[in-house]
């Protein structure tokens, strides 16, 4: 791979790069092997008894049991249910916010701006606690509504930016046809803004899916709580590590797939960033640079 940052390597640079590469691989693999050996080594507990290493078969045999997988599946389903319901409401809340923020009347615009800043600046966890304690709803709805409001605020800003980025003629032609402002918004502006902002919205839904794990803290039986608390209590604490590991793997697979979808959509329909001329992408670090730039300046760059 070549890059503007360095010349195409000559024989010496290639050799040096190869040597550093090999040393690097040895160091990284060595570190991983040390970690795995450390995990696998049996340990002597303070009371003198010996506990088997974390990779010992006796810590993983529960996964042969279909019952355990059924329970894990229930936890996964609970996570997906929360993410799905919250996603639908987040988009609705987002549309409402984009209306409020671009309203003509100042009496609508200002309060919705203040509200939006409030929701964006507050931790989701605090919002979940607030809804849980003040409205007294069950943890599922506390988590779902907090996630919907928080992510809705961000989606709303994205939609507003999308509408603002449209050429003014789009709106004007709708009005000239005699459509009301509301119909212009729904028939002409929203469809285009949605399409433009789809990568951001999907990236935000990845954040939403990740954040459902916060519901663990308020006792909603989602994937993390099901595995590390309910199942671990049932089968014994020595399976805690293995159960956590499986939950982690499931989260990773889900999020990586969704992130991949977001990237795919961004490549196909997203705003073309960094294009200065035909076929001269300003990429400093390889072919995925533009995409990465687009991505990190948008939704998935926000670790929240």
């Amino acid at each position: 791979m070549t890059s503007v940052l360095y010349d195409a390597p000559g024989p010496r640079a290639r050799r040096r790069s190869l040597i550093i590469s090999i040393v690097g691989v040895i160091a990284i693999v060595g570190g991983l092997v040390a970690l795995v050996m450390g995990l696998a080594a049996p340990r002597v507990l303070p009371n003198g008894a010996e506990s088997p290493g974390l990779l010992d078969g006796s810590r993983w045999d529960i996964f042969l049991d279909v019952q355990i997988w059924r329970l894990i599946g229930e936890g996964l389903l609970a996570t997906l249910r929360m993410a799905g319901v919250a996603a639908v409401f987040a988009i609705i809340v987002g549309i409402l916010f984009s209306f409020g923020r671009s309203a003509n009347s100042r009496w609508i615009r200002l309060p919705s701006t203040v509200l939006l800043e409030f929701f964006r600046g507050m931790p989701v966890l605090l919002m979940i606690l607030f809804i849980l304690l003040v409205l007294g709803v069950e943890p599922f709805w506390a988590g779902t509504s907090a996630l919907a409001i928080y992510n809705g605020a961000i989606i709303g800003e994205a939609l507003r930016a999308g509408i603002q980025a449209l050429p003014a003629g789009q709106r004007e032609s709708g009005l000239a046809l005699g459509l009301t402002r509301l119909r212009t918004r729904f028939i002409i502006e929203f469809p285009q803004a949605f399409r433009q902002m789809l990568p951001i919205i999907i990236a935000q839904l990845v954040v939403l899916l990740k954040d459902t794990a916060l519901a663990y803290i308020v006792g909603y039986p989602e994937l993390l709580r099901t595995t590390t608390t309910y199942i671990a209590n049932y089968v014994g604490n020595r399976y805690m590590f293995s159960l956590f590991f499986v939950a982690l793997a499931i989260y990773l697979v889900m999020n990586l797939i969704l992130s991949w979808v977001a990237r795919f959509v961004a490549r196909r329909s997203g705003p073309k960033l960094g294009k200065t001329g035909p076929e001269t992408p300003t990429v400093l670090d390889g072919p995925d640079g533009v995409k990465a730039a687009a991505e990190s300046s948008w939704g998935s760059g926000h670790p929240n």
Partner: protein
Amino acid sequence: MDAIVQFLPEFGEAFLVTLSLLAFAGLGALVIGAVIAAMRISPVASFRAFATAYTELFRNIPLTLTLFFCASVLPYLQFNPGYYPLALIGLTAYTSPFVAEALRSGINGVAVGQAEAARSIGLPFGQVLTLVVMPQAFRMVIPPLINVFIALTKNTSVAGAFFVVEIFAVARTAANERGDAVIPILLAAAVLYLVITIPLGFTAGRIEKKLAVLR
């Protein structure tokens, strides 16, 4: 109102704990993120692969799981320096890939001609990066970096659920103790977070506007 006064000392200390979490985890994430970003654009293939894997993995693990790992699994593996350092490790690990991505997007934003000019006068990769590209990139990434730190501020609340006594933890215990004053207590906690996040966001906006004029 009396409930807030009653818990004022606790809230004061918790605010400082949140600030220190933000400062230390932010600094740690900045250092690790810069290293990862440099590895990701380096000519050495194994570094690039490692940095990519690191970013993809840590970005896609929910923060709750990262902190759960630090607060429960690490002590279980007989590594237990206390909940505060463990939370710092978790928050740093979680935030660093986002810092790395922000830095990388800044490097991508530097005009290609800059790097080409630096190379054409014979500078090697290290100097192209540290003398020409990085200083320009850093200026551009200040707003996105501030956004990362805003997110980090909000994320410190999750540490409160794992036995670190910061704003969220104090709000939760206070609300449990004074069931009659839940709303003012939680609003006070929200205000404490907003005191950090809103000025940060405002600064990011100002810097962004300033740079937009310059470019």
